């Protein structure tokens, strides 16, 4: 059983599309890796896989080995060289699996009805040869339909086998954006978790506020605070609000190391630097391509936030094992 060497499985869910499930999954994975855990990311969004794009590995392909598929490695376990702001750091290995790696062309539509999707999800859960992992993050498509039902059916069966590590299915991180439209869909997802007996590890409110790079005024583009209210309504932990950071988008889209105006402070930590990006943040897109994504992510203003979120998640998960 390929899932046996995985210690903890965490689902990333949201009833609403485009709230940043894949973005949050990516950052959780990078942060877990930076904290020294070995991580796998499984993307079961079959009609719109985004994970290959987020990790910058769109051109990679999955390899076939006896007994299953080998996931695509993002980076191996290694020690990051010390830098101006950081000491040397041991990071865990990170690998991904997505339908995007199997498609012949990135523009191809996957037009499948439910039963076919069910089969694919099950194959992803049973036929991928994951290396020993501390955490497997599963990124899901929006909604509460075929993919979710199949995922949970298969997972609940597999994780209750006597050979599975105890409490292997740790629970779900639910992502929302602050506005009421999104909250009303995500409430459906929380009810889905309740019905299926999945523990909600917490709610993350994404896209909460945008800080104007010109005048530093924070605008709540999609209003604010909805996620926290919802979490308390449903009596589940609230993990934190994540603002919109155009530098993170740049990091993903163009591989540019995030730079901020001097004096930018996030979670009590100075993240600004002398090298100020121009209005569009294209200061140092060149030459950054060969650096590791995980290394560059340490410079992102969202990293300190996720460092805290992941720290609490890991402590919570470990306290139950």
């Amino acid at each position, binding site marked *: 059983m390929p899932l046996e060497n995985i210690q903890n499985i965490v689902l990333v869910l949201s009833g609403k599309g485009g709230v940043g499930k894949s973005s949050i999954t990516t950052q959780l994975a990078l942060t877990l890796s930076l904290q020294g855990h070995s991580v796998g990311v499984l993307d079961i969004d079959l009609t719109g896989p985004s994970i290959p794009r987020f990790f910058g590995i769109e051109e990679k392909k999955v390899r076939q080995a006896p007994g299953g598929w080998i996931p695509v490695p993002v980076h191996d376990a290694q020690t990051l060289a010390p830098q101006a702001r950081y000491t040397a750091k041991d990071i865990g290995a990170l690998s991904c699996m997505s339908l995007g790696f199997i498609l012949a062309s990135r523009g191809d539509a996957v037009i*499948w*009805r439910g039963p076919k999707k069910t089969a694919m999800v099950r194959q992803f859960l049973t036929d991928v040869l994951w290396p020993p992992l501390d955490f497997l993050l599963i990124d899901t498509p929006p909604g509460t339909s075929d993919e979710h039902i199949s995922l949970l059916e298969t997972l609940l069966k597999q994780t209750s086998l006597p050979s599975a590590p105890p409490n292997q299915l740790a629970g779900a991180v639910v992502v929302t954006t602050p506005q009421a439209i999104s909250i*009303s869909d995500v409430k459906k997802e929380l009810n889905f978790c309740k019905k299926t007996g999945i523990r909600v590890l917490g709610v993350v409110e994404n896209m909460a506020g945008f800080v104007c790079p010109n005048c530093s005024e924070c605008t709540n583009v999609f*209003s604010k605070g909805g996620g926290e209210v919802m979490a308390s309504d449903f009596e589940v932990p609230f993990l934190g609000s994540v603002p919109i950071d155009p530098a993170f988008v740049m990091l993903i889209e163009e591989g540019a190391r995030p730079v901020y105006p001097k004096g930018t402070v996030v979670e009590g930590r100075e993240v600004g630097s002398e090298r100020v990006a121009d209005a569009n943040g294209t200061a140092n897109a060149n030459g950054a391509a060969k650096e590791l994504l995980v290394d560059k992510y340490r410079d992102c203003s969202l990293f300190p936030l996720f460092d805290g979120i992941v720290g609490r998640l890991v402590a919570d998960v470990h306290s139950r094992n």
Partner: protein
Amino acid sequence: MAPSLEEPTQVDFDAPLKAAPKLVAPEPEHCPGPESQAAGTADSCAGCPNQAICASAPKGPDPDIPLITARLSSITHKLLVLSGKGGVGKSTFSTMLAHGFASNPDHTVGVMDTDICGPSIPKMMGVEDESIHVTGEGMEPVWVTGNLGVMSVQFMLPNRDDAVIWRGAKKNGLIKKFLMEVAWGELDFLVVDTPPGTSDEHLSVNSYLKGAGVDGAVLVTTPQEVSLLDVRKEIDFCRKAGIRIIGIVENMSGFVCPGCKHESQIFRASTGGARKLALEEGIPFLGAVPLDPRIGMACDFGESFLDAFPDSPACVAIRGVVRRVAKEMGIAGDVLGES
């Protein structure tokens, strides 16, 4: 050898659907679909408890399709709003489009929400707490204004936060029910809002509406490549399914800081955005709508943004897009009824 899906489209779009038989067990993996012509005879049907039922069900086209076609014959223009990606503003745009068309008192407009698992239209229209009345004619849509009606699964839920945990086949059944039984009456426009992706809902809407005739699809995207990636797939879907693409709208394009009026590209178009995609694919670019926090607020409160802030740049852009959509559909005169 790397495993590869050389032919990801396993669906025959032109195959006439036959009526789905009553099944005794859930559909197995790789089920060809109980409506398909191969039902009961495909390789994957071996050993399925439904096999005999599927194989003996009457073949030939679904007898309900002519009923749907007849029911929808009183609707002049039918429009799909599609996007491969979630959260790019399909429902927001559908709402705006409907409000835009309905701002002309001569038009009657309907909106059908086919997003079963995450219906947003009722909340955006401010009719979330309504429920459906059934008359001798069929199900009566919920009327937002005198000339704007809405139909959504949300109206059927006993508790509005209930999750609809349905597999594809069940969702298809509901969409068919909506198309067959909703008494729209005489409509000038029917806007069909869809969920993200290219799956059951999309295939069903396409095959059920084929007979009735669809004017085309409007694609919605945001500027960044992560979203365009999924929209390319949707274009591929439309081409394969033979749905005409009316054009593509770029939503959340640029954000003007209310404090200093500095414009930031929150979702940066690093690959040229929708404009370049439209050019590459040879489809019309309908316009770009800037990100305005008041649009989200208007949606949360179920108000029409077009009525609330008629002078804002976003509103001007939306009006432009609505006019352009009407033009691409070949509607003469000013669709907004302003001149």
